[in-house]
């Protein structure tokens, strides 16, 4: 919650979007929690920082919903880690959530871009 980012241009995630990001990350293959967090940070070009407490809670929630499954395995650098992978149900949810997201982005864009005439368009403060 109160994690201070390494640089100020990182932003916290919107509630609900974390699930989508996790599911998307797992499309590439099974991954452990630390890897998921790092991956989200890296692929958002160091902008989206995941609070680790929230990450694990989200992972647990998704596991409870049977969208992802988990088992203990060994990481690339030979550490014991809990690996999460996408279930068929999770894959289906990903498509649904993604289209939902797209609709949201479009709707937001329609409104915001319309009124964003005199501001810097690159400013991502939300």
């Amino acid at each position, binding site marked *: *919650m*109160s*994690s201070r980012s390494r640089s100020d241009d990182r932003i916290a995630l919107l509630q609900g979007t974390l699930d989508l990001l996790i599911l998307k990350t797992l499309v590439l293959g099974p991954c*452990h*929690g*630390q*890897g998921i967090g*790092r991956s989200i940070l890296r692929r958002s070009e160091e902008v989206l920082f995941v*609070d*680790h*407490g929230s990450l*694990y*809670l989200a992972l*647990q*929630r998704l*596991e*409870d919903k049977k969208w992802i499954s988990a088992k203990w395995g060994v*990481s690339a*650098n030979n*550490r*014991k*880690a*809990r690996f999460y992978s996408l279930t068929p149900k999770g894959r289906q949810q990903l498509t649904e959530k993604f289209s939902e997201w797209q609709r949201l982005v479009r709707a937001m864009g329609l409104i915001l871009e319309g009124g964003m005439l005199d501001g810097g368009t690159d400013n991502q403060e939300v």
Partner: protein
Amino acid sequence: MFRRRRSEDDFAEEIRSHLELEADELRREGFSEEEAHRRAKVEFGNAQTARERFYLRGRVIWFDNLVRDIQFAIRQLTRNPGFAVVAFLVLALGVGASVAIFAFVDAALLEPLPYASPDRLMSVSESDTSLPGWPLSYPDFLDWKAENKSFSSLDIYTGSGYLLRTRSGAEPVHGERVSGGFFQTLGVRPLLGRDFNPGENQPGGPNVTLLSYGAWVRRFGARPEIVGQTIDLDNEAYTIIGVLPQSFSFAPSGNAEFWVPINKLSLHEHSRTFYNFAGIGRLRDGVTVASAQSEVRAISNQIQQQYAITGHDLNAGVTPLSEVMVGDVRPILLTLLCGAGLLLLIACVNVSSLVLVRAENRRREIAVRGALGATPARLVKQFVTEAVVLAACGSSAGIILAATLIPVLARLVPVRMASGMPFLDRVGLNVHTAGVATATALLTTLLLAITPILRLPFRQVHADLADGGRGAASEFWSRLGANLVVFELAIAVVLLAGAGLLGRSLYHLLHVHLGFDSGHLATVEIALPSTLHQNSEQIKVFNNEVLQRATSLPGVESAGLTSRLPVQCNCSTDGIRIVGRPYHGEHNEVNERHVSPGYLPALKAGLIRGRFFTEEDDASRPGVAVINQTLARRYFPDQDPIGQSIANDEGGRPSTWQIVGVIDDVREGPLDAEIAPTEYFPVNQTGDRSFTLAVRSSRDAGALLPEMVSSLHEVNPNLGVSNEATMVDKIDTTQAALLHRFAALLVGGFAVMALVLGVVGLYGVVSYSVGQRKREIGVRMALGAQRSSVYRLIIRQAAWLVLVGLTVGLLCSLGTSILMRRLLFGVHAWDAVTLVGVSVLLGLSSLAASFLPARRAASVDPVEALRAE
């Protein structure tokens, strides 16, 4: 619901692994080892918080809701304290009564015998068609023991009395003579010392005795060194060889203090037809009661042929010992259990109908909450929680009530009778009782939770909101509520009828024709030490002195001596023949009583023919007898018994007795037993050494008792004087009177509670319906209906319910009374007086209960009622 959750350890492990992976990555990015770890931790945020959040995840909502539901339930209950208190009390009463009664049933019927493998213990007896289960004769016992293969051991016991020499004189004490293996058969080991040795059991064996625990503590100060010392019983020295454990009791022996091996037999006891010893046997493994019975029967038949015992069809009986021990109390206990069960049922029905009324009133609230998003499951859970809270409080209070009731009930049993009920010591809250209590609580909860759930259609939210909680659903409620009330009233009728029948039985029992006047009679038992008064002449002198002293006490009108008081038992029997008639060994059992000349007149027994005994009827004269009317009718049906003679074959006494008088039947046996034929012999011709003094006075008999005792001690301080009591007390504390009184009192208590609950239930239903129909009544009155017709409207509705309840109840009570006919005395199961009385009682109380709401209905102001809408 019960999905397996991930353990916290597993989660902690995952966090650890995360931190290591993160540190690895940071190291790769060029941070020092230490810095990498530090940063990994900082990055993660607070690991402890994460763990806590993991722990609470999922649980917290469930728990929060539970706490909220309980708080809500308690708030709801306290908001309506009348309902809460009534429901709580009713439940506590129902559960308390059932659990308390069950505790007795459990102790008496489920584990009646405190011995090793009690189910293998049998009572072994002789029997014939007319008299099942009479004692064995000693020779028969020896033969049965030697020849049977069904029992691993077979033993006998018989009650006995001794005069114990104490520092202050002589005291009559209860003893029990038993065969040597008696305690091994029961599986009881002495607490101190040893059991009987085999040699001590043989005729002519040494005088040894085992002490009961009570005797050891009371008489010998619980000194262990008492073992090996000698005491004086009947002027003979007996060596104490051991002390029996505290837990040991043997109901047929009452509170016998001295246990002595059977190694001296009286003259009669050698006889094969002197039946004096009760038998117990332990069945071998795998032998059934039936096969043991048929084997012993075969042996018995063979003995009968061998010794040419003819006449009565001698047979053998083998019945479980528990049957003999608790057979008398079983029907009463089962009746009480049923009564308590019915009370519990009525309590549950009552409370659930209360819950129902409340649920109906909350219909709108439920609809609102449903509309605001509460799921049906959530609403149901709330009702269940309320039921659980209510049932839990009620049941725990009930269990506490049971725990306090049990000792109170146990204390109601008089000591004299309690000694025959060893199971009383074990009555209490144990595993069984706790199990039953829990089951009762669960059932109650279920009932209370299910009633409103079944009734509340959680989905009809819209309809209910619009309707404001009236209409079809309420109609349904009044129908269901009415059904429940009918059920309650029917149960109340069953209990009332049962109580009425038991009450009338008790009345009949206590007013049964005694054949003598029991008022103003004081009695005391006397035993003569054998050193005193060796011959019959001396005994006669002594008897006269006792009687003279007694009659000289102030207020005393007359006095007499008897070998046994009336209304005790049909025992001390004699086998008789009629002199001058052919005899084929028929078993003519009659009660035998030895009485002084003044005894029968003192009882105010009615003389029908002939005369009472006189002072002249003593040892120097030929034997004379007075018989009762039953004996005269049975053995001299067409003939005048006066002048006839009866004979018995007991040695050492005149064996023929000429009948000089016939008296009206004096009830010698228990109150509820048939009158048995009885013969009376003059005490001066029998030379008894122990008897009971009966004194009739014009004063209060109880006040006379201490004076009687002290005047007897003046005659001789070494006399054994015991059991002083008035005749009325003696009768009141006989088993028959006590059992009937118990049954009548307890079932009566249950019935009163059931009546109150049923009537309150009726009141609830009628007032609810009046409340619901207020508008209708208003309309009727606005249209010109008279108040009297409103009364009629309401009372008619109540009358229907009562009528149905009464009819169902009366039909059921016929069934239950037939089931408990063993407890009835002098009344039929269909006793009209009782049934009419119950109907009137219920009808009147129901009328009263429906009158109040009817008056409320009649006083409805039509303008008000209509404006309220």
